[in-house]
């Protein structure tokens, strides 16, 4: 892992990654002497049952006397849980191991003088180099180490929060005067690779006023991750409640383990009117903190999570009321409302029933001038009006493509969806009509529509 320059140097760097130590585990061959000295069923014999225990316990107390220096503890059980082979003894990391984005890289660096002469004025630097940048971790230029004696050492510990993926190099350099008074320069390089510990998949669903965010976090490391905190940090004007978290008992999913979280998000603006921002809809970010071996922490933030894009709605046209009985060839009024959602005055407007591309014949038309003029509407204001229509055919017909256009800005907005209405004869054989067109009447009596 380390490469050095050619030539003889008095100094050399020794480096060891200092991630947290681990508990040593190794179930041993340690037994209770009862299970060795006698047959397993001997205590069924009442004679043995009364006489053996005193013999065994006197033997055991002799062999655990600490002044009697034997290796008895390597073979006899002192406490029943000794059989686990897990005494709380800690072991230093025995290899570099894997390192992941969001963790902290910590290393012991020792610079040794293995020559027979003192070295002087040692300027030591340690930095991390990645593809994108160099980060200085240590620099003794301002106060160089005055001297390192023959056979002596200077130690330091460096830490670096890992924020990039891929190849990293720990570069250790020493500039010093050697025993001959020559100024020497020693660079040493220690390479390691940073991998991604997690992947996060999100799904967004909007149901009426509420947005639901489902987050699925998958563990890509080789060991288990204990999810310390997974918090949703909402964007401005959004608030979040967490609905479901994988239970703490399932927090240890090693290599491929998946954790699921569900959040309920609500949008609320400071004023009472809803201001919908055009374009992409940023919901917020997930902040994830986890712990591995002996609480070694890691943290990551996702990128901005996007909701469904909102299209800008400048004006809104709504049908407020349609009469319950619409008679053939008789004019009727449809009550409409036009609302201006922008912060500026819009209009004047024109309302008509526009043609579709197939140029189908309309059976319900405007009675009178085919376009209706409306005056300007104030910012955030609205206006009510009535459209005078007439139907020319019986039965279920459509009021289709009520369209409003802005005369000044010369643009048309999307037409309203078609509305079905039932057309009947005025005052005629109602009973007959009812029995034939029962469905029709039912439909027409429920013709109060909102947009």
């Amino acid at each position: 892992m380390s490469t050095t320059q050619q030539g003889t140097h008095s100094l050399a760097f020794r480096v060891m990654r200092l991630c947290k130590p681990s508990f040593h585990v190794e179930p041993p061959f340690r037994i209770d002497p009862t299970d060795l000295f006698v047959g397993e069923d001997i205590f069924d014999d009442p004679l043995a049952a009364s006489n053996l225990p005193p013999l065994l316990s006197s033997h055991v107390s002799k062999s655990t006397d600490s002044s009697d220096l034997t290796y008895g503890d390597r073979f006899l059980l002192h406490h029943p849980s000794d059989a686990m082979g897990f005494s709380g003894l800690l072991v230093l990391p025995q290899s570099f191991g894997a390192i992941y984005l969001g963790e902290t890289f910590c290393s012991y660096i020792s610079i040794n003088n293995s020559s027979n002469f003192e070295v002087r004025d040692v300027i030591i630097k340690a930095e991390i180099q990645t593809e994108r940048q160099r980060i200085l971790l240590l620099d003794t230029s301002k106060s160089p180490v005055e001297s390192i004696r023959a056979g002596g050492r200077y130690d330091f510990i460096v830490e670096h929060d890992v924020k990039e993926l891929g190849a990293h190099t720990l570069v250790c350099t020493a500039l010093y005067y050697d025993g001959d008074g020559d100024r020497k320069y020693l660079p040493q390089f220690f390479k390691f690779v940073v991998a991604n510990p997690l992947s996060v998949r999100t799904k967004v669903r909007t149901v009426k006023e509420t947005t639901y965010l489902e987050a699925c976090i998958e563990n890509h490391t080789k060991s288990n991750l204990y999810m310390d905190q997974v918090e949703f940090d909402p964007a401005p004007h959004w608030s979040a409640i967490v609905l479901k978290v994988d239970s703490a008992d399932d927090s240890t999913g090693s290599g491929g383990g998946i954790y699921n979280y569900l959040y309920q998000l609500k949008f609320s603006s400071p004023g009472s009117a809803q201001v919908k921002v055009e374009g992409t809809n940023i919901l917020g970010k997930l902040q994830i903190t986890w712990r591995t071996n002996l609480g070694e922490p890691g943290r990551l933030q996702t990128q901005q999570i996007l909701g469904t894009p909102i299209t800008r709605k400048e004006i809104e046209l709504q049908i407020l009321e349609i009469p319950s009985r619409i008679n053939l060839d008789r004019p009727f009024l449809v009550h409409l409302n036009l609302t201006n959602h922008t912060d500026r005055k819009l209009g004047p407007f024109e309302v008509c029933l526009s043609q579709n591309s197939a140029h189908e014949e309309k059976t319900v038309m405007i009675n009178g001038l085919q376009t209706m003029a409306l005056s300007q509407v104030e910012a955030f204001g609205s206006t009510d009006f009535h459209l005078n229509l007439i139907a020319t055919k019986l039965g279920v017909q459509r009021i289709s493509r009520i369209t409003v256009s802005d005369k000044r800005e010369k643009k048309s907005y999307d037409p309203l969806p078609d509305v079905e209405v039932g057309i009947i004869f005025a005052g005629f054989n109602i009973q007959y009509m009812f029995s034939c067109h029962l469905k029709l009447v039912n439909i027409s009596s429920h013709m109060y529509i909102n947009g």
Partner: protein
Amino acid sequence: MDEPSPTADPLTNQFGSLNDLAHELASLQDLATRGSWRSILDKVSRARSLNLLSNPHDHLIYLSYNVLALSKLRRFTDASNELDSLHDFNSHHYKYETYPQLYPSRSGSMVPFSLRFIHAQLPIKLGNRQEGLDRFYLLLNFVRQRIKEKESNSLQESVKIWKKRENFVLNCLIGHHLGAKEFNVCLDLIKDLINHDYLDPVLISKLGYIQMQIGDLEGAKGSFNRVETMLNEGKDDGSSFLGEVEFRNLVNRNKALVYLVGKDYVSAVREYEECIERDHADIVAINNKALCLMYSRDLSDSIKVLENALERVPTVALNETLVINLCSMYELAYVNHSEIKRTLSNWIARVAPDDFDASCTRV
């Protein structure tokens, strides 16, 4: 096996000393506590070839020591073959009632229980983990059936012993699952043990260590607080294995771990020093203190702590984990570390028991 001698009654003066239990048992046991496993192999071999073992139980006990010695010397295949030579632990050959002249009015199995344990653990050491785990779970079943039997026959002492064995097998299982990082299983098993059997501060502390290992620091602190409360209230289970010094040291060591995880190495060292003051041979405190010194950038003192321990209390300090740590420190501290490691290695060869795994020095 030889024809048992009908005239001798080896179990009349039965329980005066170890030698009453089996031929020269005291000597075998002495060799074992010294770690002289090779000498045990010699002794067993000699006893067999000179026909010194007259009774079936002698043969079984010598076989047990032999299998244990082979296992200790990491000759797992040889140990396995020797165990296989018994064919079936439950055979009538190994029952007291098969030899009524030798064991009048005694019945049941004369197989030493450790043979069953070694039989389960060997496959794991040989790399066949699944087979070993299966055997452990079958053994657990077997033990539980024996407990039911003895209970229904009101054999109090036997029930006690078999319950101890149940506890032992569960502890082995936790250890093996822990080694394979199967933490959820471990947590379930250990919590089960704690809730069902007894309030054992060592067990609760170990639960804390597992919680700490997986990163559940709050859980670990909770477990350690439970243990400290037990110390302060003078509570533990009736059959306590913990003397007062041990109990106090346990609490200090648990505290030290919490400091260590929080990177407060100075406080951790202070806790460990309290332990060492009370008990010079508290090797967990000594080892872990050395690591704390190293994490505080004091490599020189960390080395000194471990070297001192090996000098002062070699029979407890001579532990493969401690030696691994010391060698890692040497590799960091010295460019030419092979020399100092060889010195250590030579010293170990003179002093260590036969079963010490010298490969830990990486020389």
